[in-house]
C-alpha cells in the first residue's frame, strides 16, 4: 500500500512536470547594484500580436505590479508619454541608449523598462481553446542605457486539463498577471 502511494505520487510529479511546458529566461547583471534603482519608467511595449491593445494592457499590468511590489516607484504612464515627446524619442518601445539617458533626465528615473508582447490571445489546439501570453521585459539603467535585467515569460496555452476537460483555460487577465508576476520574481530574487 505504501509502495502504491509512492508510485502514484511519483506519477503525479512526472505528470505535472510534463504539463509545465512554459518556459522563462532571465538575465540579471551581476555587477549592478539594483538597490540604487528607486524610480523607473515603463515604456510602451512593442506589440507583436493581433490584439491592438495587448501592449497597453500588459504595460498597465506591469506598471501596477511594479508599484504593488513596493520596491520600485513607477512614473505614471502619462508622464512617460510626456517624456518621450519632449525627448523626441523615435521609437518609445525601443529607445536607443542615448535616448534612455535623455529620458532619464526628463523623467528623473534610475531605470527604464521596455518590453514586447509576443503572444496575446487565444490559441487553439484541436478542439481545445485557451488564452496564451508571451512577454519579454528589459530594464535599462539610465547612466549608459545598457540592459541590466531581462526576463521573459509565457503563460497560458492549452494544457493537459484543457485537453482533457475543456474549459478554455484561464482568462487573459489572469495569465497576464501570472506572466508579469513571474517576470518580476526574477527581478526581485
Amino acid at each position, binding site marked *: 500500500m505504501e509502495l502504491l502511494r509512492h508510485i502514484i505520487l511519483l506519477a503525479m510529479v512526472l505528470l505535472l512536470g510534463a504539463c509545465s511546458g512554459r518556459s522563462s529566461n532571465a538575465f540579471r547583471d551581476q555587477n549592478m547594484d539594483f538597490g540604487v534603482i528607486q524610480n523607473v519608467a515603463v515604456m510602451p511595449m512593442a506589440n507583436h500580436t493581433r490584439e491592438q491593445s495587448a501592449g497597453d494592457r500588459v504595460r*498597465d*499590468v506591469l506598471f501596477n505590479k511594479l508599484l504593488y511590489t*513596493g520596491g520600485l*516607484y*513607477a512614473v*505614471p*504612464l502619462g508622464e512617460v*508619454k510626456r517624456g518621450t515627446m519632449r525627448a523626441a524619442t523615435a521609437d518609445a518601445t525601443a529607445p536607443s541608449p542615448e535616448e534612455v539617458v535623455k529620458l532619464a533626465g526628463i523623467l528623473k528615473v534610475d531605470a527604464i523598462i521596455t518590453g514586447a508582447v509576443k503572444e496575446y490571445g487565444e490559441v487553439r489546439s484541436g478542439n481545445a481553446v485557451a488564452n496564451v501570453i508571451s512577454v519579454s521585459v528589459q530594464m535599462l539603467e539610465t547612466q549608459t542605457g545598457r540592459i541590466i535585467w531581462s526576463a521573459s515569460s509565457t503563460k497560458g496555452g492549452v494544457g493537459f486539463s484543457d485537453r482533457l476537460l475543456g474549459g478554455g483555460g484561464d482568462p487573459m487577465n489572469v495569465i497576464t498577471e501570472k506572466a508579469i508576476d513571474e517576470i518580476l520574481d526574477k527581478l526581485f530574487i
Partner: protein
Amino acid sequence: MRSSTNYSYKAGRIQRAWLLGIVLCAGIADTSAAAETATLRVAVLPVGNQSGKTVPVNDLREMLIRGLEEQGAAVLADAENEQFLARHRVRFTGGLDRATAEAYRTETGVDAVLISSVDLYGEHDPPRIALFVRLVSTASEPKILWFDSVGLTGKDAPGLLGLNRINDPKKLLEKIQLLLFGSYAEYHHGRKSVPAVRTTFEPRAAFRSSVIGSDLRENYVEFVESRSSGEETVKYARIAVSLSRPSGRTASVEYLMSGGSAVEGRDFICKDTRLTFKAGETLKYIDIRIMRDKANTEQKTITLVLKAPKNALLGETRVHTYSIIDVDPEPAVSFTTKHQKVKETAGRAVITAELSALSGKDVTVPFLVSGTAKMPGNYFITPSPVVIKAGTKSAEIVLQVADNGVDEDDRTVVVTLGLPVNAVQGRTATSTVTIRDVDPEPSVSFVQEGSRIDGQRGTARLEVALGAASGKPVTVEYEVTGGTAEPGKDYALRGGSLVFAPGETTKAIEIDIRGAAVHDDDRNVEVSLSRSENAGLGGVRKHSCTLVNPIPAPAISFLTRRTRGDERTGTARLEVGLSAASGKPVTVGYAIAGGSAVQGKDYTVHGDALTFAPGETGKVVELTIRTFGVYDDDKTVDIELKGPRSATLGEVPLHTYTIVISGSSLQAEDENAGDGAGMTAMNAQQPGPAAAQEYTTPRKGAGIPIIPMPAVAFTSRETRGDERTGTARLAVGLSAASAKPVTVAYAVSGGTAVAGTHYDLQDDTLVFAPGETHKHIEVRIKGDGKNTEQKTITLVLKAPKNALLGETRVHTYSIIDVDPEPAVSFTTKHQKVKETAGRAVITAELSALSGKDVTVPFLVSGTAKMPGNYFITPSPVVIKAGTKSAEIVLQVADNGVDEDDRTVVVTLGLPVNAVQGRTATSTVTIRDVDPEPSVSFVQEGSRIDGQRGTARLEVALGAASGKPVTVEYEVTGGTAEPGKDYALRGGSLVFAPGETTKAIEIDIRGAAVHDDDRNVEVSLSRSENAGLGGVRKHSCTLVNPIPAPAISFLAQSLHFRKNAGVAKIAVELSATSRKAVTVPYAVGRAGQHAQGAPVMHGSLVIKPGRLSAMIDVELSEISPEAGEEVLEIVLSGPENASLGRIPVHRMTVISREHRPRIAVIPFMNVSGRKDAGDLLMLQFVKELSSLDDITVMEPGVVRDHLLGMRVIMYEGVSLSDIDLLMKTLDVDLILTGRVFDYQDYEAPGTTPKVEFSVLLFERTRNRVIWASKSYNKGNDGVVLFDWGNISTANTMVTEMARAVKSKLVTWE
C-alpha cells in the same frame, strides 16, 4: 437588480437646513426668505445619452422631474430652464461649472441642478436601463449634494419560472424611479445606507502608499527644530519630533546618533532608537540622558538623524544637533615645585606645570622667565607657552643648564605663571631654579715678569690678566716693592688696586714716568700684586719695569784743536769738555800722541786721565813747560784723548799744543793760514776756554811773542746745578797770568730765579791776584722746598780793570729743582649728609705746597644718581700754585622719594704736577629722610563687562618710592565664583622704584548664560616699603552681558486630536539661564483673547539650566461640541526673560480630520466603448462623494478646467498636468485611470466585462499614492443558479469602484 450607492452631502447630520446654509453663504436671498422657503428649487438639465443608442431622454427627464416633485422639490419650469440654457449657450449638460451654477442661482433662483445621463438603454430582450443622477448645488463652488446611479435589466430578478421578469421598459423605468428617489428620500431625510463591499470586485493588485493617512494626505515626521542646547547639568535633553498632521494610524520613526563630538556612554545615553506616534499624536520627544563629565571641556554635540519612518515620510528637518554646554570650572594649573637647586654641570632641570584636575581641553600655560641667570650664557628654557594636552595632567618646562666655565655667583631662574588658557592660576605660580656655580676662581697675575720702557715722560702700562673670565668683580691690590728708580723723581705710582669687571680679563697698572734730563743708567720699578678678591694670585706676581734712560752719553773732546804758549807759560792747561752734563762720573784717558817737544825735557804731563764728576762738564790737562830761555824752534806736543767711560769721544780728540819760543810757528801759520781765520773759527766752535786762548794768539806778523793784557771772561757760557748744591761756583778766568791784580765787576743781569728767594748774590767785584788766572763767583743757591720749574740766574761781567773783557762775559746758571711733586689726597674718607642738607664738600689737599698748578682729575661713582640725587663740581679741579687745596662741591638734591641711602664715591685720577696721596677715595653718603608712601586701590569699586577678558584693578602709591614696594592682595569676598566666573588667586604686586601704579589683573571667564551681576572683593594686605592706604578693598562687579533669554513656543502651531488626553506644548528659552524663568500663560479660543475669559491659565516655570518646559492642556476641557477648535496659548510678561519669536501658539484641536479635496478626471479610454472613460469617472465621483471626510469636485467644474487649461492627455495624465490641475482646482488629490474594457449587456448569454486601472495623485509630492488594477465579469459573483450575476456594466463598475474606495480609505 438594485445595486446602486447614493451619496448625500453630510448625510445624517444636515438635512434640509444645509440648503438654507448654502443660500445664506451665497447671499442670494435674505435670511427671512430662506427661513420661509423650505422647498428645494431645482433645475433639471436635459438627460445626457452615453449609451450609444436611441434613448427617450424626455421620458426619462419627466420621470426625474416627477420624482423630484414627489419628494417636495420645486422644479424650474422647462421654458425658463430652456431660456437659461439658450441664453448661456449651455451645450454640455453632463456637469455644472462654476459660472453656470452662479448664473443659475442668480438668474433663476434655483438651489440645485439635477444632472443625469444614460449609459445603457434597451427596450427589448430584456429591457435594460442604466443611468446616473446627481444633484449639484448652485453655490459659487458647486457641490454634489446627492449622487446615485442605477442599472437594471428586465431579467435581473426573474423569480420562479420567470414570473417576475420585466419585459415592459416603462415598468422598468418605474422601478428605476422608485429606486432612485428612494435613495433621494434617504438623503432628504438624512439617512444613509452603507452597502457592503463584495470581495469579488476588489482590485486585483493595489498599491497604496504607506505614508498616507485616512485623509489620503501624506504625513511627515521631522524634528521641530534643527538645533537645541542645554547645560550638562540637566538630566535629560528632550528633543521634539513632530508629525505634520494627526494620523489615524500608528506612525513611527527610527533615530540614531550619526555624529557629533559627544561620546555615547560617556557623555550621554540614549536607550531607545524609535519613536512611536499613536493615532492622533503629533508631538513626541526623544529623551537623551545627559551625563556630566565633571571635567572642563569644549561644548559637545550630539547629532541625531531620523530614518526609516513607518506610515509617514521624513520631513525636511531630519537632522538635529543638540549641544551639551559644559559648566565645569576650569582646573587650576600650578608648579609642582617652588624651589630647586641644580649644579651648572647637571645638564637640565625640569619644572612641572600640573593641573588640579584633568581637563578635556588643551590647556595653554604661558610663563615669564626672570631671575639673575642669563640666557643663553647660563641656560636655555622651553619657550613659552607649554601646552597640557587634553586628558593629560601635566607638562614639563625643561631648563637646559649651561656650564659656562665662568666663576660667578649662583644664579636663579624664576619662572612665573602667566594667565593660562582653559585653566586658572593655581597656588604655586612661581618656581625658582637656583643654578649653583661650580667653577674655580681664576688666577690673577702680570702678563710678563718684566718690561722695558723708554724713560721719557709718559705712562708705562703693566698688564695684569685673569687666567679666565670671571662672573664676579675681581679685585687685586698692587704696590711698589723695589727698584732703582726714585719715586716722585723718576716715576709716580702709589699702591692701589685693580678691579676687573665681570667678564673683563685684562687690566693695566699705569706708571707715570717722569722722564730723564741727563744721561744716566737705566732705572727700574718693581711692582707686586697682593691680596686678591674673587681670584687667586697667579705665578707672575712681580713685575720689573725698566725705565730706559734715553739720553745718549755725552761727547768728550778738547775744546780746541790747538793752543800755544810761550815757554814762560809754565803750565799749559788744555781744556777738555763734555758736550753735556752727565748723571754719572765720566773718565777719559789721555796720552802723548806725538809732537816735536820731548816729554821730560821740554815738558812734563800731569796725570793720564780726567774724571768728570756728575754734572761737571769741564776739565783740563796740564802740561808743565820748562823754560829754557834760549832761542829755539817752537815745539809741539800732541795729546790724544782715549778710552772714555760713560762718554764718547768728541770731534776733537787730539790737541796740539805749541810752545812758542821764537814765534816761528806763528809765522808759518801766518803764511799758511793767511789771517789766522781758522783759529778763530775753531775757537768759535769751542766755547769756554778756547776763547781765552784767542787773545794769546800772536798777532799776525809778530815775530816775538807779546804778552798782551789778559782778558777776563767766564770760563763757560752756562752751568747748572741743583738747588741743593748750596753754593754754585761760577768760574771766571784770565786769559793769561798777570803781574798786576786784575779786577772785574759782576752783576746779576736777569734770569728767572729770584734773588733772596732762590739765591743770594750781591753785585760785587772779583779780584785776580797777580799770576792768578782763575776766580770763582760764588752764588749761594737756596732750595725753596717746592716743586717748581727750573730757574736761571744770568750774570754779567763788566768794568774790568787791568784786563779786557773776554768774549764770554755773560754766564747763565740754571738752578735745577729737585723737590718731589706733592701728593694730593682727599681730606675725608667718608662723610654723611642728609638729602636736605643742601651741599657737601670734598677737599683735595696737597701734601706740600707746589709751585705749579696741580690739576686734580676725579671720577664719580656710587649708588646716587645725577641729577636725581646730586650735582657735583665737574672734574678736574685745580689747586693753584702756592695754594694747598681745592674743593669739590656736592649739591645734594632732595627728590622727595623714599629710597635707600645713596652714596657718591669720588675717586682721584692721576693728578698733573702731583701724585696721588693716600686718601684717593672720598665717599659721601646721602641719607634719605623721605617717609614711606602709602599704597591703596585707586577706587573702591568698578564695574566690568563680564565677557571673557581681563579686569584691571588699579593700585597706586601715594608717592613714588625709590625702593621696591610690595603689597599682597587676596580675594576676600564677593558673589562671583572663583574658577567659574573669574580666576584670581592671592598674590603680590611689586612696584619697581619710581613706579606709582600697578594693576591686579582678574581673568574674567565670561558668562555663558544670563544671570545676575556678580562681584569680586579684593583686599590689600601686608605691604613692604609702604604703608597701607585708605582704600584697601575693591569690589569689582562683573556685569552679566548676556541678555535675558527669549521665551517662545517651540512650534507655531500643532494639531491635536481631541481624544489625545493632554496636549503638551513645549516652551523653550533661546538660551539657558542661571535664573528661573517664569512666564504666565493663558489658553483661549482664537481671536477671543482680547475679550478675556480664557479657557485656562497658569504660570510656567523653567528652572535654571533648563531650556524648556511644557504647558499641559487638558483637551477634554476644550470645546467638546466643535469639530475643529483653534485655541491660542498666549505667553505674556515673563520674568527673567523676554518674549521670543513665537509668543502665541495656535493649537488646533480636531475631532475630525481635514477634509481633503479630490478631483476625478476622465479615465483614459482604451476600450472599444465610447464614453467609457467618463463613465468610470462618474462612478468614482459617485463613490468618493459618499465619503464624509472628502470633498469631491463636481465633474462639470473639473471639465471646465481641463478645457480651460487645454489639458491634453496622451496615454494618461502627466505630472505637470497633475500639478497644474491641483493648483488651479485647489485640490489635494486627483484620481484618474485607464479603462480597457467596458462591455455592457449586449444580448442574452452575454455578460458585462469591465477592466480598468486607477491612479491617485497626492499634491504634496506630486506622486502616485494609489494604483490598482480591477477587472471583472458580470458573472464573477455568481454563486448558484445565476444568483449574484450582474447584468449591467454600470452596476458592476459601481461594485468595483466601491471596492476600490473601500481599500483606498481603510487599507488596514
